[in-house]
């Protein structure tokens, strides 16, 4: 912590913090936040829909057990092996890339690349949406059947039920979990490193470069980068626990 405000001789300085406004660093923060936001929102929505499908969507009970188990595995299947899996699927010589090519769709000539923003987001989603399922399924179970029946007795349509009863109750936990997903992606390093080899500027990758000292080594800057991350993470965890408290009022 203190390191972020210390100069080379240990004097107090705000230099490192102001260094954060350099172009490539801002870009790295922007990339990190963008990837995290996109995967949190998309993964959150998709995970929510799947959680809905297996809880109150009327699918057979064994499907639910299966999905929950798969989600448990997928949310833990991350880091280097996950990157490998996506490289052999959608990388330049990947299986799916090859299949699509023989079907007449050349992904890479159309501007897609696994090693950029889109590919990274697609990869992150693999551990993002299962996490959403794991957290949302119990929340959806908490929706009491009586509420729906009561609203139907009062003449509400399905849409009205969702709009005025279910959504207001679920919203805090949906948003809260999305915040958690955001943090989850924001702190991710191993997947990004193994996937892009450190070529895409993310905050975590930049800190890594500062430690290894291969680009403009400056430990103070590393500290400042780290502080920036911790501030963002602390903010999101704060949001999460606040939303969590709100959702606990109804979901018991």
């Amino acid at each position, binding site marked *: 912590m203190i*390191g972020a405000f210390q100069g080379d001789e240990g004097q107090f300085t705000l230099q490192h913090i102001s260094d954060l406004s350099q172009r490539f660093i801002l870009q790295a923060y922007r990339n990190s936040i963008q990837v995290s936001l996109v995967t949190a929102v998309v993964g959150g929505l*998709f995970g929510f*829909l*799947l959680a*809905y*499908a297996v809880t109150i*969507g*009327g*699918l057979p009970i064994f*499907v639910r*057990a299966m999905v929950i*188990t*798969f989600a*448990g*595995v*997928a*949310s*833990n*299947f*991350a*880091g*280097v*092996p*996950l990157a*490998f*899996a*996506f*490289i*052999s*699927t959608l990388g330049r010589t*990947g*299986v*799916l890339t090859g299949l699509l090519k023989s079907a007449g769709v050349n992904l890479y000539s159309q501007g897609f690349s696994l090693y950029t923003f889109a590919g990274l987001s697609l990869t*992150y989603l*693999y551990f993002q*949406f299962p996490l959403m399922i*794991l*957290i949302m*399924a119990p929340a959806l179970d908490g929706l009491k059947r009586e509420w729906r029946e009561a609203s139907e007795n009062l003449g509400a349509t399905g849409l009205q039920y969702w709009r005025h009863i279910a959504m207001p109750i679920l919203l805090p936990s949906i948003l809260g979990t999305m915040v958690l997903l955001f943090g*989850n*992606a924001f*702190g991710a*390093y*191993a*997947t990004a*490193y*193994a996937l892009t*080899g450190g070529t895409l500027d993310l905050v*975590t990758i930049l*800190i*890594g470069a500062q*430690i290894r000292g291969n680009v403009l080594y400056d*430990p103070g800057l*590393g*500290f400042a980068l*780290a502080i920036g991350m*911790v501030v963002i*993470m*602390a903010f999101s*965890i704060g949001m999460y626990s606040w939303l969590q408290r709100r959702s606990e009022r109804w979901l018991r």
Partner: protein
Amino acid sequence: MRRRRFWPWFWLALGAIYFFVPLLATGEFSLRAQRDAFSLLAYQRVLQDNQFISSFLFSLRMGILTILFGVLLIVPTTYWVHLRLPRLRPLVELLTLLPFVIPVIVLVFGLIRTYSSPPFRMTTTPATTDILLIGGYMVISLPYLYRSVDVGLRAMDVRSLTEAAQSLGAGWGTILFRVIMPNLRTAVLTGALLTLAIVIGELTLAQYLARPAFGPYMALLGQNRAYEPAALAIMSFGMTWAAMGLIYFLTRGQQAQIGGGH
């Protein structure tokens, strides 16, 4: 109450495709090491690689030590908080959430900056670096281990058990190791399995502390080889699956475990 079943099945199908396509593709890819024929060559090469075995064993050793020290630290602490300091529980819970707030890369940066200069100088020899590594792993696995133990302790009547043991003349050591621990077997095992899975797959800490662990080995392999990484991914998926299956079996599905080192 019958509703249309189309959309739930649709989302499920989409999820299944997204989940299985990369796995199938990776599986196929890993069998392609030999030209024009499917073979297990890539797996063979991986398993015969000396570095594979040595780095895996290294990570396994680190994982076991992490679990050992983690359990020794967390079980008595959580027990004491449950028994005597229930008011501190929110604080302890907040502390165990900290590893989620502080990304691993920040943690390792701090570790290196703090312990590489006097008065500590711990990054100079492998043995002392390993201590740092285990310390870091303990921090990463803290939330998982704590949560399992906490759930386990909640499921039993800590106070009555303690008082019963005390009135039979047991000391603290006896209470902890012969009364509390046996009751926590499942909880500790669950946490331990998760910890092991995390430690073995972990890249960041080991890479920057420059220790020959499994994560850096995998990353290196990924940069230099084509088919072996796919085989490794499939094997590691199998291991994750086994660990989750064991946890599921141990807790009979009561506890959905969340986490991992991304």
